[in-house]
């Protein structure tokens, strides 16, 4: 491999995006998004469908380059696309849709991936053995990938991406299609890897519980950065606790609350979230007022600490809607 034309920047920044803008025709998928990921961090990009996180992933994974004049991306110290080959050498990518060849065995897939990064011989064999061992895939190494369960396949994907010892691992919705236990298992592997491989992990997600597990979160909405902080700090912004009312017509109740009690609340389908300032007194008062006035309109209620969903609604004024992954029209693949 050729020596780096530019020395990697000295700071402990693993990934940096400055003013990155990306458009599909008229539509702005990303609008001047800036953030930095520190080495060793598990960094989450959270957003509903169409928030721009898939586009951000496509840029960071080097599937598409950022156009000149539309911002700067640095991956493991290397500018992309200017130093594309160097950046790619230091990058591991786990795609949402499988990138394994189903007709090849686990070992064949991983070996082939090593060859693409110039690894071979005893060095590659030792690395592959270690990774298969670590991901408990040793007994399945000679099996065709198509015979593996979804959770196992995702594990092979992650193992494969780690063969060239990347500095940064980028994952697109890694938990999609995994059941809760497979999801937890994957996270255990990722957390362990951060320790042993000194890996920086960046992932997109629309799972709020998964987002909670990240060290820091970038929240995107309609292509814009709306927040960047630790999950705890984000939740502190909302305040003490949240009273969630289940009701038949949330909007009517919201208007009544605003008019009669001067309380602001967020509509989320049939639910209404009322942030409550810290203090038992305030909680009791609010519950008292709400129940006395509007008991008939309330089907059920819960009192809980704020969730990231509340954070999102507070920041954007809209509910966090998820469903099938929205892919920008240009990037839509053939299913």
């Amino acid at each position, binding site marked *: 491999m050729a020596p780096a034309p530019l020395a990697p920047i000295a700071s402990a920044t693993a990934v940096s995006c400055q003013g990155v803008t990306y458009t599909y025709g008229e539509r702005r998928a990303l609008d001047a998004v800036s953030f930095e990921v520190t080495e060793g961090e598990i960094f989450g990009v959270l957003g509903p469908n169409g928030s721009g996180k898939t586009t951000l992933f496509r840029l960071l994974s080097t599937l598409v380059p950022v156009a000149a004049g539309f911002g700067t991306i640095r991956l493991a110290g290397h500018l992309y696309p200017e130093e594309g080959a160097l950046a790619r050498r230091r990058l591991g990518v786990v795609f949402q849709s499988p*990138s394994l060849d189903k007709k090849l065995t686990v070992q064949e897939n991983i070996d082939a991936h090593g060859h693409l990064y110039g690894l071979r011989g005893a060095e590659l064999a030792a690395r592959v053995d270690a990774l298969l061992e670590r991901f408990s895939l040793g007994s399945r190494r000679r099996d065709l990938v198509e015979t593996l369960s979804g959770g196992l396949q995702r594990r092979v994907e992650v193992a494969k991406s780690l063969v060239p010892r990347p500095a940064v691992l980028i994952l697109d919705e890694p938990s999609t299609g995994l059941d809760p236990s497979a999801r937890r298992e994957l996270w255990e592997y990722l957390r362990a890897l951060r320790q042993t491989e000194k890996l920086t992990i960046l992932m997109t997600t629309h799972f709020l519980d998964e987002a909670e597990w990240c060290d820091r979160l970038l929240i995107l909405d309609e292509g814009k950065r709306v927040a960047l902080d630790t999950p705890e700090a984000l939740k502190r912004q909302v305040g003490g606790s949240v009273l969630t009312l289940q009701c038949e017509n949330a909007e009517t109740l919201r208007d009544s609350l605003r008019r009669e009690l001067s309380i602001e609340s967020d509509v989320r389908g049939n639910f209404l979230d009322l942030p409550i300032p810290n203090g038992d007194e305030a909680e009791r008062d609010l519950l008292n007022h709400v129940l006395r006035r509007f008991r008939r309109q309330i089907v059920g209620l819960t009192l809980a600490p704020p969730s990231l969903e509340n954070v999102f609604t507070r920041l954007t004024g809209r509910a966090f809607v998820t469903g099938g992954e929205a892919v920008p029209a240009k990037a839509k693949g053939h299913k």
Partner: protein
Amino acid sequence: MSDFILAVRTLTRREIVRFLRQRNRVIGALATPLVFWFLIGSGVGKSFSGGANGPAASTGPAASTVSYLHYFFPGTLLLIVLFTAIFSTISIIEDRREGFLQGVLVSPIPRAAFVLAKLLGGTFLALAQCLVIYLLALGFGLPFSVLAFLLFLGTVILLGLGLTALGYLIAWPLDSTQGFHAIMNLFLMPLWFLSGALFPPGGSAGWLQWLIRCNPLSYGLTLLRLALEPGMARTPAMLDPLVSGLVMVLFSAALTYLAILLTDRMTVRNP
């Protein structure tokens, strides 16, 4: 071994392993041209027997059928190469968006490695199938000479590279396999029909002869005919063998280059 060659070798091997592990592809690849050859050859041969310009304008209907089967044989090999090229490139469309290719595209190897592997894989598979059929034909009395065999090998390799590259050029910008099928029916199959594979160009309409002369596959077929049935190839409408060789080299080199260019260009595309 350089990293580039290692990557090309690994990716080419993947193409071949994938082919061998899909039994229906193996069966389809070998059986389809044989069925074509036998059915079309036997059927068309009968109706050709009256034609004055036909290659099989000989004594009786039985003899003409045999001759037409003979005439049609190089066209069958061309069809094998065409089918293999189509099948090995059609997978790109799905692979690129959500499959193995994603990982290749974000790896540090130049994209040319992956293009070359795709083309070499397609060429190798086409060559292997043509060799099987060639061996069968030897068993049925095809005359053998080293020179003819080398010409056969060279032509199939050039045709394989050229046609796989053509399939690649069509498949790469597409985002649905349905689109590929449409283009295949509209464009690739006529390319085969108008190569002199089914009927000798000499007897057809003027504009058709002109089309056949513009079709690079006609030149490949001429070389195949020369290798497989030197006696029959020498008709007045026959294309010049040297020119044919030159056209085939240019055809596959140009399309291979274009395929690499197109794939590289997509890296800097930013809609």
